[in-house]
């Protein structure tokens, strides 16, 4: 099903979506665009390239409570905060970020123990993807095409949107998307020209050039394994790194977390918070032993995790080429340049 509206009527569409569930969509903020829960339909703004923080936070919030407790009270009185999946519509997600959900699903709910919080939110969400503008060049940090992701891939979205001038085309991709799209009033039917424009955009997205040539996951996995002990290579690569961790926080596929207790005036919360393998004490053990005290060891861990360990464990590279880590790195470390250098080393 293909429907159409205009960008002038975006807030009408947002308003209609808000009636179907919690709407999370790009909002313009001082630091850049961010996905936010929408309280006023006029906040939704599609004039963005991509958000600063990836939309993973919708399913895996930066902090989330597991247990609420009171110190000095019996342990049985602690109150578990069980996962809740309330109907949610995630609107305006770029194709590379949509792909990240699939990669995270393998880890959080597809293999081994199931993370009930991730799973509950994922199952209750409808994803409305949004094609990059294939008429404009990609931003210099992006390399999703390198990883086989098109600029307008509808796969993984329930509904996929393509902008056509001042029009917005919405096509249902899944049954869930079709049900949602059918239930939204105020949209007009699409013409045969619109159908063609949508399909042409998806096709153009597949050929859309981002940086670099394609990488073979198996080859890079092996190469990084062989390079593990080449300390010189890793020291050079990490020379400028500040261990600030911003690359992991903006990343759509970084999932490391800490579980910590925070108590204030005897009221406490056990919660999960994002953590980063770039931090010194990430692997500090109670004995005092720490296998990764040096910056190069931590950067090596991060890159090997994404391009080698994850491939060995789950069969896919844990990166979607969104370019956020490079864009927001305060010392201009470019993850893909390191991978490229590794292939040549």
């Amino acid at each position: 099903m293909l429907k159409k509206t205009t960008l002038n009527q975006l807030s009408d569409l947002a308003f209609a979506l808000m009636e179907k569930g919690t709407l999370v969509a790009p909002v313009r903020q001082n630091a850049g665009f961010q996905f936010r829960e929408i309280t006023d339909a006029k906040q939704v703004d599609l004039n963005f390239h991509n958000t600063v923080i990836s939309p993973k936070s919708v399913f895996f919030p930066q902090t989330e409570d597991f247990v609420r407790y009171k110190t000095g009270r019996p342990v049985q009185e602690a109150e578990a905060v069980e996962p809740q999946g309330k109907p949610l519509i995630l609107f305006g997600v770029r194709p590379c970020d949509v792909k990240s959900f699939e990669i995270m699903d393998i880890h959080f709910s597809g293999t081994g123990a199931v993370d009930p919080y991730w799973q509950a939110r994922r199952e209750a969400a409808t994803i409305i993807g949004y094609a990059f503008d294939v008429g404009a060049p990609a931003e210099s940090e992006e390399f999703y095409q390198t990883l086989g992701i098109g600029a307008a891939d509808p796969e993984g979205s329930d509904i996929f949107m393509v902008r056509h001038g001042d029009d917005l085309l919405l096509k249902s991709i899944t049954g869930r998307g079709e049900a949602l799209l059918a239930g939204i009033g105020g949209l007009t039917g699409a013409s045969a020209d619109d159908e063609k424009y949508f399909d042409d955009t998806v096709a153009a997205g597949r050929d859309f050039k981002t940086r670099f040539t394609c990488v073979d996951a198996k080859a890079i996995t092996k190469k990084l394994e062989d390079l593990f002990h080449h300390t010189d290579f890793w020291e050079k690569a990490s020379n400028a790194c500040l261990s600030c961790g911003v690359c992991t926080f903006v990343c759509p596929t970084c999932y490391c977390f800490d579980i910590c207790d925070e108590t204030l005036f005897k009221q406490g919360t056990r919660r999960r918070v994002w953590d980063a393998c770039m931090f010194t004490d990430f692997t500090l053990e109670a004995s005092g032993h720490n296998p990764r005290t040096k910056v190069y060891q931590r950067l090596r861990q991060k890159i090997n995790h994404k391009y080698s360990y994850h491939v060995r464990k789950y069969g896919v590279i844990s990166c979607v080429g969104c370019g956020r880590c490079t864009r927001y790195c305060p010392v201009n470390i470019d993850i893909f340049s390191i991978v490229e250098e590794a292939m040549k080393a």
Partner: protein
Amino acid sequence: MRSTNPYIPMPVEIVKITDEVDTHDIKSFRFKFLNAEDESRFQYLPGQFAELSIYGKGESPIGIASSPTEPGYVEFTVQRAGAIVPGLVTAALHDMEEGGKIGLRGPLGHPWPIEFLEKKNIVVVGGGFAFTTLRSLVKYMLHGDNRSRFGDITVIYGARTPGLLCYKDELAAWEKRNDIKTIITVDKGNETWKGREGFVPAVCKDVAPSPANAVAVICGPPVMIKFTLPVFFELGFSKENILTSLEMRMKCGIGKCGRCNVGYKYVCSDGPVFSLAQLEELPRDF
């Protein structure tokens, strides 16, 4: 029906505390489940671990020291950490008394490969306080229902001093049995010590267990493991038949939080038990 959420601890009560060593910083805590449902769900095998959870302090992953052949409780031997980093959970636990209540999440990780060990001669080598999950294994194998499933059992256990040996009563009982060969050693004895003196690797060389149809299960401080492994190579044990258990900093214990990886393996959910053959495939990042 209680939560099956893997992040939510089950409440347990401390029913027995044993002061294991003369430095009083290693104690065994025996716990009873407060909910019968939790107890029946907590089905474990030797080599697994659990997260001990104290609200306001945090969680610590600790190997299970009791054997599933001892119903009604689960026991952990815990060292008070804090010499270098603040050991919040272990310190709080050490300060608790019998009747105190904490939380427990588990069982976690893979056990010693019991089926693989069956019908083989087992050489258990432990050093210091790392003997906990080996004690679980020995108790399991010695149980009347299980003893005939295994061949000869040899235990080589060492500590720095006689006062630092854990489970002293059990060791004495094993020494009296004729279905297990128990060799106890200390790095340095004292005036009352009548047993062996010598480091674990040297004692292993001296005892020289036969590699024929045998598996060595080794746990101890890194320095002990480093010098003990070559001894077992020289004796002719294959890398597949040398098992050990790794430690890394952990949080979730279920392979989700990304903290305890060595290469592509998570120590919590892919381990903590690894054969030497498996370890040699991993980068030296632990």
